[in-house]
């Protein structure tokens, strides 16, 4: 293994993110090749967390753009501050300024509201980490626009001209795959698919993130989660749920899993009514047996 990749893994672990080599290799390549990294995987496997850890690792700002249907340029890139422009316009009229002067005044950078994408490319202190979260929720049109920004790292504002990136940000895109990402955008990025963690990795994550949980409890929780994911569920729980659950159990002062405890706290890990119903009562026993046996 290349030394830098091993170091990256240690560094991330120091910050509390247990990364397997697939994750660190992808992150290393994305950093070296200066290409955005598209991360896919089920909800709760730690996609967003990667961007946060990367920002801390590089000691830089994390700029986050949360995508949703209907997201457009004025909320993702820039917007003029109309109220201030209008006020300035009134004052300028009283000062009897010429049209050109007024125009230069109100279309200056100080009247521009920077939204996440613009902020990410205009940050002066060094490259930021730009997290474009849940890109699958935005519509196709926005994806095409994003592709343009991510290809050139420059933005054209009609009144101001073209703004080039001061530093090219580290870009991480995440997707829950509710919609297939277009081929062009996918090709622009490097790609990482995160699986649910193995038992060993999940236990290590638990020991790191919930240090109060004993070795036995962590092991049992890990095995329970693994057994749960082998069942047919409409929403398989991710690591995020595992951590929540461990914390809940800790607050309840439980040191190992039994049926009563699990039944009381199942809502921490199963967030679907049908899953909860299917796994109530006696249906829990085989899963518990796998976890504690």
């Amino acid at each position, binding site marked *: 293994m290349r030394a830098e990749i091993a170091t990256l893994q240690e560094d991330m672990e120091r910050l509390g993110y247990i990364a397997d080599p697939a994750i660190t290799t992808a992150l*290393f*390549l994305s950093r070296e090749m200066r290409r955005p990294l598209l991360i896919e995987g089920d909800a709760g496997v730690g996609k967003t967390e990667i961007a946060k850890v990367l920002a801390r690792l590089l000691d830089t700002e994390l700029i986050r753009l949360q995508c949703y249907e209907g997201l457009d340029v004025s909320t993702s890139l820039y917007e003029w501050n109309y109220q201030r422009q209008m006020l300035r316009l009134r004052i300028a009229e009283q000062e009897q300024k010429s049209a050109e002067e007024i125009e230069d005044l109100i279309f200056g950078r100080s009247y521009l509201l920077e939204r996440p994408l613009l902020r990410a490319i205009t940050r002066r202190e060094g490259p930021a980490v730009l997290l474009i979260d849940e890109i699958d929720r935005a519509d196709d049109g926005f994806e095409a626009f994003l592709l343009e920004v991510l290809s050139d790292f420059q933005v054209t504002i009609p009144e101001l001209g073209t703004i080039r990136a001061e530093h090219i940000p580290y870009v991480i895109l995440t997707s829950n795959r509710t*919609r297939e990402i277009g081929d062009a955008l996918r090709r622009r990025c490097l790609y990482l698919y995160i699986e649910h963690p193995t038992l060993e990795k999940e236990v290590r994550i638990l020991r790191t993130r919930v240090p109060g949980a004993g070795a036995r409890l962590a092991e049992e929780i890990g095995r329970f989660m693994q057994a749960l994911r082998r069942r047919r569920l409409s929403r398989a729980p991710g690591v995020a749920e595992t951590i929540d659950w461990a914390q809940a159990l800790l607050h309840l002062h439980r040191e190992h899993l039994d049926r009563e405890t699990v039944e009381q706290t199942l809502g921490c890990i199963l967030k679907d009514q049908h899953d909860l119903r299917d796994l109530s009562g006696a249906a829990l026993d085989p899963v518990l047996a796998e976890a504690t046996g």
Partner: protein
Amino acid sequence: MSEPADLVHHLAGFARALREHGVGVNMSDEADGLAALTLIDLGDRAEVRRALRTALKIRQRDISVFEELFDRLWTARTGSARLLAQKRRVQAAGRPRPQTGAPRPRPDRDSALESVMPEGDEPGYSPEAVLRRKPFDELSPADLLAMERLLSRLALRLATRTSRRRVPSVRGEVDLRRSFRRALAHGGEYLSLARRARAIEEPRLAVLCDTSGSMDPHARFLLGFMLALRRVAKSERSSEIFAFNTSLVRLTPFLRTLAPERLSRVLERLAAEVPDWAGGTRIGECLAEFVDHHLDQRVDARTVVLILSDGLDRGDIAPLADAMRAIHARARRVLWLNPLAGDHRYEPTARAMAAALPYIDQLLPAHNLESLERLLPLLAA
């Protein structure tokens, strides 16, 4: 052969093998793969594997194919000195420029996650509720009339679904950006406010309707629904309708010339245009014809393809599977309505049905109006 070329060739051969096994890897991906290989420890096979997975953008569904080909084709190379020399030369040569071709439309494969709950009207006893659940083949002429009214209400609901995207409009919320722009033209006076409202997104549909004998009552209803939809849709181009049994007929042009009249009469006239209406079926050949002559023009990444058939066909299933694969690759979503699926004991075991199944996003029942209602959220743009 020079040594750096060796690594390039090896990667190209590997990429070709991936393509031959249906994994989409193009030139720009190969260039990324090569760039990635120059950055990692080539002696570490596991790392090479991981790097290629990331740089060639191997999706989760293709991972097993990738792993198998990697094991078989990526020869173990231990002569790291030789490879290092290659690496340096490759680095010196610089990264080839990625070539980005026209983006291929992607089908929406995760649509199975979407809710299929009917929206709107509450269940309960009412003549309408009974009508909704009544199987199509048990309807009386009086039912048919009532059904027509219901159909057009359903169609209206679908055609007026609003998107979350906002577009300029005469009504709706104030659009500051455009209002300001307008005011500037009048020296800063807001003479009029620009407004924006949610766009109405019309669904784009391609409907393939089996009109063979076993499907007759159901075909009439699906076609009736589509006709009602066309009537309320703003754009004529929003839906395409085909009928098939032993051959494929594009019905769309006939619909244009039909005056709005009683559904049953329209259907009678359509039936006259389709040879062998209520005869036997050759699904595979008909779908293959659709792929050859209509797929490129009538189906794009926004189109939902709706196939109505019971899948009872004794013909060759190979052309069917090929055609379904092609349709699935191009359409936004492929839905198959099977009246038989209304029976909870139904398993899609008919040969044609089983062959088509891997390329269907959702298999749905279509035996009564209620099941058509469930379709609505799936058809929406």
